[in-house]
């Protein structure tokens, strides 16, 4: 019996020491698992993104390379998400533009959950979408994970756009004559404008934004003192400044316009794009 008391006491003491030892390791272990939760959430988010979001936002979320289910390259209808204007800083440029006062995480989560405007669908179950709350959370974590020092070191605005179209076209960054065929390619594929505006010849009707058929004449009537060229140029750069009267679904909404305000930033890398698109739209 005495030996049993000794064995039992020793075993109990060792068990308590094992407890104590595992308690000492706890802070490091808790951190590992908290990180693992985030890591696995991002992994799950990347798969959901590849299956659902990349069609419109592009394979690397820069809205430059989009493919349909058959693998054909199509116009990217979504905004770039791997984009410093969305991700950099506690209050990013996009959040300022939208007057969002919550966190960046909540901004992205809410946008994914409830959708935005007529193109971005609602994704969360609670708003009738296909994703469970945890999946929306995963995609949010994935998108936020694009933030990096390299991304945020790049300047937000890369090009100083002159106020007047004339001045821009006469400037050193543009080679004239502009190429309307390239403009069409940019309009329908690269920037995906035709997804909302249709084509200028009317072969594809406008879906969301105002139709641009006859824009070369209509454009001159919209704003006093602006010809069609100046009006279109200004509207591409600052969509919310002037709201067109008629959209396919009724009067156009805004300001703010549902048209993305980042074309100026995107075209800043290659201002010739603007010249070519103007040439295509205005038939010059």
């Amino acid at each position, binding site marked *: 019996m005495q030996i049993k008391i000794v064995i039992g006491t020793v075993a*109990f003491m060792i068990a308590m020491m094992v407890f104590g030892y595992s308690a000492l390791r706890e802070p490091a272990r*808790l951190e590992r*698992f908290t990180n693992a939760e985030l890591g696995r959430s991002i992994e799950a988010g990347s798969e959901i993104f590849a299956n659902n979001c990349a069609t419109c936002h592009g394979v690397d979320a820069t809205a430059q390379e989009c493919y349909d289910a058959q693998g054909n390259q199509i116009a990217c209808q979504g905004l770039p998400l791997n984009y410093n204007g969305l991700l950099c800083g506690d209050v990013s440029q996009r959040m300022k533009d939208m007057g969002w006062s919550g966190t960046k995480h909540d901004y992205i989560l809410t946008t994914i959950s409830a959708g935005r405007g007529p193109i971005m669908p609602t994704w969360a179950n609670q708003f009738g979408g296909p994703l469970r709350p945890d999946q929306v959370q995963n995609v949010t974590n994935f998108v936020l994970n694009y933030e990096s020092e390299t991304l945020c070191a790049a300047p937000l605005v890369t090009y100083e756009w002159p106020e007047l179209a004339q001045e821009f076209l006469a400037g050193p960054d543009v080679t004239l004559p502009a190429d309307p065929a390239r403009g069409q390619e940019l309009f329908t594929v690269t920037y995906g404008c035709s997804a909302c505006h249709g084509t200028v010849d009317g072969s594809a009707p406008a879906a969301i934004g105002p139709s641009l058929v006859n824009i070369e004449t209509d454009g001159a009537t919209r704003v006093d003192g602006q010809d069609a060229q100046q009006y279109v140029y200004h509207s591409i750069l600052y969509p919310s400044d002037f709201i067109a009267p008629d959209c396919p679904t009724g009067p156009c909404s805004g300001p703010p316009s549902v048209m993305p305000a980042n074309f100026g930033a995107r075209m800043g890398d290659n201002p010739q794009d603007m010249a070519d698109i103007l040439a295509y739209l205005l038939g010059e």
Partner: protein
Amino acid sequence: MATFVEQVREMGIKQAVVTKADEVVERLTAGMNINDIRAALRGDEPRRPNPRLRPHADGFWLHIRPSFYHTGVTHIYPTFRLGWLATFMLVWETITGLILMVFYTPSPLAAYGNMWNILGNVPLGQLFRNMHRLGAEVMVLVVALHMLRTFVTGSYKKPRQFTWATGVLLLLFTIFLSFSGYLLPWDQLAYWALTVFISGGAAAPAPPIVNDTVLLVLQGGPALGADGLLRWYLLHVLLLPLLAGIFFFVHYYKVVLYGISLPPGREQVGEDTAKRVPRDERTYFTPDILTSELMWTALATLFLVAGSLWLWDAPLETHADPVVTPLHVVAPWYLSWSQGWLKLADKTLVVGFIPLLLVAFIVMPYIEVGKSRRYADRRVGLTVAMLFITLMLVSNWMGSPEFRVQSSPDREVSIQLLPEEGPGGLKGIPFEHMTPGTYSPGQVVDGNPFLTRGLELFQSAMFQQSCTLTGNTQWEACKVDVLENGTRRFSNFFTSDAMPDPVAKLEIVEVQPNLKELILHYEVTNPDTGEVSTTEWTRPRHAFSNYEEECRFLNKSCATD
């Protein structure tokens, strides 16, 4: 009776406190004072009348325990302490379960997040989860062994038939308790194991209306969802523990009533002398049995704590997803035999047979009424038992992943290296050693032993699923079967569906800061048509995901060492 103040006046403060303490101890133990306890611990003979018997007569906690045992049953043989151990496990599961309950909400919205909260936010949370899960598996094993022991020593025979019957039910409750807890983490493992189990139950040989209703009640809807989870939670924490508790006390009452049966050789055939204990054969509960039980409690606690810390981690897969079925759904080991049976016989037959088996177990002692408990007289019974155990072990093995249905060869390679759930050969490579680039199976990457080992595993996985028609020394030569429609099928030693002369490669791409994608490419040229088919398998891997740790624990062929 003098008051404490009067006692102080009379004896002085020191003596009064000692007397009072003695009195309190005697009340708490329902009969033993401090000197009696010290004498018991020293192993002295008790004074007369024996104060060590009073707690059994007057106290609540010991009133169900016998005050002495036959010395013949107090050794390791014949009981192996299994009944006691099963009781210990029940208490253990209750305590760890209550702690886990604090951090758990039975809702699909919260349950899976709760698991990560327990793992990453609750101090010792992982340890308690492991202890509960490990305890559940050990408990099933212990209860099953307890039943086996009872059969082997013939202890189910008259007058203990009813004790045996309640014991069979307790085994059933134990399995259900363990299995009902399976669903609660609401991960893929849980969701699909339960879905398969419930749908199996609904294939019972009964009218469709009965089966459909059972299915609806167990799932709480057309598929497992919020209501189903709540139901299984309530089963797990309320109904089944209640049933197990009630039957435990019935079972134990009968054990005390009839006494623990002596080793079969110790008594005459047809006699039951367990309750007729001669004075010199008595082992008293206090102190001998009590110290023995406390020692085993300490040892079992040590084993479970250390095992939960070092031997094994409770698994946690990705969030339950009703629309994504994992490739291989595996039953827990204690139900694996049923999966084995399903491969042999029709579902309805198997599901109908299991309750019959249960009834057969319960009524067995009322039918097998041979008087002798001696092994030599029970050759048929013991042989049948051994055959049954062999059958269960073989069935269990047949239900194991070893005998799973094969999918396409490239997918078999992919899920071995980069499974959807848990770690695999390539997932366990430390993140910083996943150097972006394109690699072929078996390639040696200088200065990167981890990736080299991973690619070795890639090569050996490919080897099992590939064969050659062109004499490529990398693969074995193809065995060719010509099917009826004229197409040829290629096989090797391992599989009947091998890829002929495949070209495979692993591509590692960095897609985000701290996020890489591992892409397995397979290119197979059909030797008959010349048609090239390419397939791809992509898994993301984040720097924080920490599959390395899981890999080490599960002892998979991960590339970490």
